[in-house]
């Protein structure tokens, strides 16, 4: 339990973890989970806009059927770079490394994560991996697609695949160590009285995500190592000339990559499960079912990777096994969507920006999830696989889901992290703009996919141009809506009004300490209540 000696707030600027020590050195060698979370958020924002630039190039190029901007090779490198940066350097670390690092110890009443030094090592691994990937970009980029399918990535691509592989390999270990840190923290550092079923759903999300991170990422590390060795030696396990089977690579790659998409979505579910009860001022609907659903998604998520390979030459029987399991994994997600909606029942709902992002998340995640159901049926996956239907599906879940929830979480905990309030009207405007821009960008791609436009095409058949122009128009609106938060959140850092300890009247231990919290998290030990006890006043 956190033994605290209360020392009162003395000078004008309240002492907090932000100004506990000054100087860049103190930031780069900090062991404080809150500072490491902020270091991560800087890296993540940088990589988000780097990937965003690649996305803009792609959308501009697709304005014309014969490619408006880039030649074919640059286009191939642009979508590969967009994929690699967005998947490994933004989506996977975004919520766990920033909000997770900052809030997990606070939410369970601990002073820090279990291994603070390992937490800092994870950040340096993440940055080193990032540097390798940027170095690969500067040396001419990669043209294999973020999936590195063999034998193209090992035998036929002469772009610097090796550098990106080393980059992703190193960042993979940053994810493993973060997962390890969270598992041990949740198991061992809960304050007395904080039993498992009093944990907020965000902590449950971090636990489920850490399980997936720890058990899936090593498979990626070794698979990419095999690719690197095969490129170096010229001979390897996936080489068809040697009798190796390219499908073996796809099995190993997707055994990691499907759980990886659950690494991206589970934290978003945790954030939504925190925001919706707060702005509906009502207990979450079906807390136990939500917990079991999260852990079920994490575990069953490991059994379903084959739905990426229905048309890849896999046997019919394996296709059917993976299909039924993929339908099974969709059930917990359906439960969660219904529970979020039911949480609004009989609440006192207010519509601040975090709530708009959370409601947007629930809506778009549901649409994304449903189209996932269509792709889980092999008979429908055969015509739709590797078309823009799949692109629209995973962007609905990733951009409509994870990015919306990440921004919702940033807005929701912004007062707690920085102690300042952002400008509410601007935030609401950018949330609504993002919702509209997003739908205009990706809904036409569902129709394009149904029409049969394949993905990763630098040039496309002229009949697809109308929808592509629509999609590119939506993309420009989306880009603007992503730039807006940079300004008004940055502005609030300097000019924002001071936020109290609990501006949203939320429940949870992190709202029982000052904002921004002191370096040791709590001045006096927090009071443990039932999770989401909105029927009682905040302690």
């Amino acid at each position: 339990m956190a033994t605290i000696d209360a020392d009162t707030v003395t000078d004008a600027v309240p002492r907090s973890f932000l100004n506990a020590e000054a100087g860049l050195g103190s930031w780069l060698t900090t062991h404080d989970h809150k500072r490491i979370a902020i270091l991560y958020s800087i890296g993540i924002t940088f990589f988000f806009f780097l990937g965003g630039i690649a996305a803009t190039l792609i959308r501009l190029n697709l304005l014309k059927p014969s490619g408006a901007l880039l030649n074919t090779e640059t286009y191939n490198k642009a979508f590969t770079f967009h994929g690699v940066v967005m998947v490994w350097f933004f989506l996977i670390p975004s919520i766990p490394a920033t909000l997770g690092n900052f809030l997990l110890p606070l939410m369970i009443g601990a002073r820090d994560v279990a291994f603070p030094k390992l937490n800092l090592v994870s950040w340096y691994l993440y940055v080193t991996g990032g540097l390798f990937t940027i170095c690969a970009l500067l040396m001419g980029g990669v043209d294999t697609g973020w999936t590195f399918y063999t034998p193209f990535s090992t035998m036929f691509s002469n772009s610097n695949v090796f550098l990106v592989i080393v980059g992703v390999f190193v960042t993979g270990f940053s994810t493993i160590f973060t997962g390890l840190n969270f598992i041990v923290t949740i198991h061992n550092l809960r304050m007395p009285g904080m039993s498992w079923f009093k944990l907020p759903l965000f902590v449950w999300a971090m636990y489920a995500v850490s399980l997936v991170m720890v058990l899936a990422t090593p498979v990626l590390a070794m698979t990419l190592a095999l690719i690197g060795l095969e490129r170096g030696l010229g001979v390897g396990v996936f080489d068809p000339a040697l009798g190796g089977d390219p499908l073996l690579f796809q099995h190993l790659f997707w055994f990691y990559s499907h759980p990886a998409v659950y690494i991206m979505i589970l934290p978003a579910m945790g954030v939504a499960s925190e925001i919706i009860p707060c702005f509906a001022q009502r207990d979450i609907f079906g807390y136990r079912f939500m917990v079991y659903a999260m852990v079920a998604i994490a575990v069953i998520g490991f059994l379903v990777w084959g739905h990426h390979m229905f048309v890849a030459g896999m046997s019919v029987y394996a296709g059917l096994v993976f299909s039924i399991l993929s339908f099974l994994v969709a059930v917990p997600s359906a439960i969660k969507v219904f529970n979020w909606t039911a949480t609004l029942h009989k609440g006192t709902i207010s519509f601040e920006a975090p709530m708009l992002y959370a409601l947007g998340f629930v809506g778009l995640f549901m649409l994304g999830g449903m189209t996932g159901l269509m792709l889980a049926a092999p008979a429908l996956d055969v015509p739709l696989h590797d078309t823009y239907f799949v692109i629209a599906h995973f962007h609905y879940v990733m951009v409509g889901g994870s990015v919306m929830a990440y921004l919702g979480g940033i807005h929701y905990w912004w007062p707690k992290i920085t102690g300042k309030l952002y400008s509410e009207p601007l935030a609401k405007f950018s949330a609504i703009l993002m919702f509209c821009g997003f739908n205009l960008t990706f809904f036409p791609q569902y129709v394009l996919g149904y029409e049969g436009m394949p993905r990763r095409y630098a040039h496309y058949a002229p009949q697809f141009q109308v929808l592509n122009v629509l999609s590119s128009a939506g993309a420009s609106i989306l880009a603007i809506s992503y730039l807006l938060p940079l300004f008004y959140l940055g502005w609030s850092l300097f000019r924002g009004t001071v936020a109290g300890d609990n501006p949203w009247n939320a429940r949870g231990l992190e709202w029982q300490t000052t904002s921004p919290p002191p370096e040791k998290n709590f001045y006096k030990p927090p009071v443990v209540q039932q999770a989401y006890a909105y029927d009682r006043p905040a302690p």
Partner: protein
Amino acid sequence: MTATSPPSPPAHAREHEHKDPGAHITPVRHYLAVLATLLALLSLSAISALFSLGYWNTIVNLAISVIKTLLVMLFFMHETEARALTRTTSALGFIWLAILIGIMLTDFLARSLVPPPW
């Protein structure tokens, strides 16, 4: 359900009391006995490989390896005294490996079967 605000405790109580694994000291002869069994099993697997038992060779070798692994895990890694959580974590890696190989086999073994007539 009142808020349980514990007093500032000199010695807090963890929810579940459990004995401290570090304190228990196993005698030396246990370690040597385990080592002897391991080396015996090693020679057994080497000798068994020389007999032509068809596919049983692989099964025997793998079974011996599993026994050796259990011996090392239970005695050298003090799994017997560790708490349930550590035991489940140690088993997790092997279970996930079994999932990977098991479901992958449904593809590689079923590929030669002719697709269903219906």
